[in-house]
């Protein structure tokens, strides 16, 4: 098992290295970051000064080495716009994006698990067809469109939910971790909890749309596979009540591949929040990156890319290890 862990960790490191290298390549793709950073009116002297200051005039391999070393210590330089360390700015936005992704994921699970299981156990009935059709439609809809339409109906027309942001102006965010919903719940601060929840509802539904549709179909097919297996028939033949067959026997075995998929979905959610954040003005990494784009603020973009890639790789690593732990065939295979 130890060898397996070591091998997977080494793999993960290689991947991270590759990603950072790609970031570097992209940065230097059109040749001149310095030129891009300066306004039209800048003089040749300003240009030279900037190049020296940023270190762009040193030979490429040296720049690359320096870049990689800095990346390893999470130093991506200062934001061109805000003049503070880029990574620090990005990290400050992590809680917002994380909370959004996690709530979206939970909602997706809440929808997918019961519907998927019921669909599988009531195969080819109206319920099944209805659920699968909805899932298909859900996978065909652009989620930002859904977000806008929900916003239109619930925020603008019906005025039931807030339009944007994480909290209503004026409400104190007494949350050390930055996770407003969860901390509000844990600290029993109902004002915070209610306000944060209302704000997160539409964005989470939007972000989680594709995942919930996909997960529903996956849960259903996974359950169907398992329900057809011999050991399930044996359990039924033994006279076990149906609910026990489903929950105890079938679910556990369907669960293993599902866990991997869930991990991947979560990773995808984290990377895919840009659109949702833009629509709902959610102050997370995605929105930060969009703004950085307008300002040609490369350090921020790089730091964000690196961080998200790191998280994705980390989640995959954890999922693989959990999978290996659950399914002994993988370890020795």
């Amino acid at each position: 098992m130890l060898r397996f862990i070591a091998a997977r960790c080494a793999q993960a490191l290689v991947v991270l290295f590759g990603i950072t290298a790609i970031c570097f390549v992209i940065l230097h793709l059109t040749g001149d970051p310095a030129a891009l950073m300066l306004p039209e009116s800048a003089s040749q002297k300003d240009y030279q000064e900037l190049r020296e200051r940023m270190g762009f005039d040193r030979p490429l391999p040296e720049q690359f080495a320096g870049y990689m070393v800095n990346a390893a210590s999470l130093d991506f330089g200062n934001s061109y716009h805000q003049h503070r360390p880029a990574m620090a700015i990005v990290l400050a936005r992590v809680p917002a994006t994380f909370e959004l992704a996690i709530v979206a994921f939970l909602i997706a699970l809440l929808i997918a698990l019961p519907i998927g299981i019921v669909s599988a156990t009531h195969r080819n009935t109206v319920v099944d067809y209805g659920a699968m059709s909805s899932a298909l439609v859900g996978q065909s809809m652009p989620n930002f469109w859904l977000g806008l339409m929900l916003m239109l109906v619930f925020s603008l027309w019906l005025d039931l939910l807030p339009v944007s942001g994480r909290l209503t102006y004026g409400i104190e965010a007494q949350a050390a971790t930055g996770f407003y919903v969860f901390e509000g719940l844990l600290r029993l601060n109902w004002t915070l909890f209610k306000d944060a929840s209302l704000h997160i509802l539409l964005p989470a539904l939007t972000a989680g749309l594709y995942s919930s549709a996909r997960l529903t179909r996956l849960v259903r097919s996974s359950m169907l596979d398992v329900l057809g297996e011999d050991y399930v028939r044996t359990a039924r033949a033994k006279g076990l009540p149906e609910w026990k067959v489903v929950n105890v026997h079938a679910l556990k075995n369907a669960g293993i591949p599902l866990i991997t998929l869930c991990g991947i979905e979560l990773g995808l959610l984290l990377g895919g929040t840009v659109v949702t954040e833009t629509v709902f003005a959610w102050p997370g990494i995605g929105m930060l990156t969009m703004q950085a784009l307008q300002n040609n603020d490369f350090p921020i973009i790089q730091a964000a890319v690196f961080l998200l890639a790191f998280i994705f790789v980390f989640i995959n690593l954890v999922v693989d290890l959990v999978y290996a732990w659950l399914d002994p065939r993988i370890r020795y295979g």
Partner: protein
Amino acid sequence: MAEAGPLPFQPSAFVEAWGSLRRHKGALIGAVILLAIIVMALCAQWIAPYDPFAQIPWEGRRGPLTHFDGSGRFVLLGTDHLGRDLLSRIIYASRVTLIVSFTAVVISGFIGVVLGVAAGYYGRWVDAVCMRLVDIFLAFPFELLALSVVAVTGPSLPVVVAVMALRIWVVYARVVRGATLAVKEQDYVQAAIALGASQLRIVLVHVLPNVLTPAIVIATLYVGRVILIESALSFLGIGVPASTPTWGGILGDGRSYLDTAWWIAFFPGLAIMITVLSVNLLGDWVRDYLDPRIQA
């Protein structure tokens, strides 16, 4: 694992495929709609009622089914903020969507199949390198990948296609690699070796046709996603340049006018949904059709 008989796109298979399609109602509808959209895209110039680029600002932000005395237009879906006929813009925008998604899927398929077969067939270090490449591309957060490229080069059509192709080839590669590994063990590959066939011949004649079916399945799964991703990029303004109408772009425009002119955001989104739904329905049928042919 073997599917049997001719490949689905070889002529001898058409008749059987057509019969199956006719039986599957959902897919038939999807196919018809998709065909209609393709026709619409091809004949956009003749079908669009008005010039999609003509800006008539004082006729802007008027709802569906409005008749204008000034320009004499009867706009079915309303006008956007610059007074352009929404319906015409949506019709024109279908071209971009179809071109981009089709090209991206084909290019990524090509890259993915080649690399997947190479990794599966030649094994060892070729395999190791390919799989690390796959891991790297998978982990790269997609939208940020697009953002970083666009930050440097600015939005453009080829860039969008390239970015999406780069994102998707990995799925093909993984699946094709798995299929190649399985095929490699089959006796008919050993037989080809025993006959004295060259490596190239074995790969092209024996391996490739037997791994294409999973690749086709992947393609059908991803066309829809590619359309959604392209529209998301255009919505954010980092996709196709704004001068060309795209469904996502029109949606993006509509965002600022959600309260006053919701139709600008509503109709393009509807168009996207209908297109992707048809593609998915058709894709589902293609997958179901290919599946039972296993071990015929």
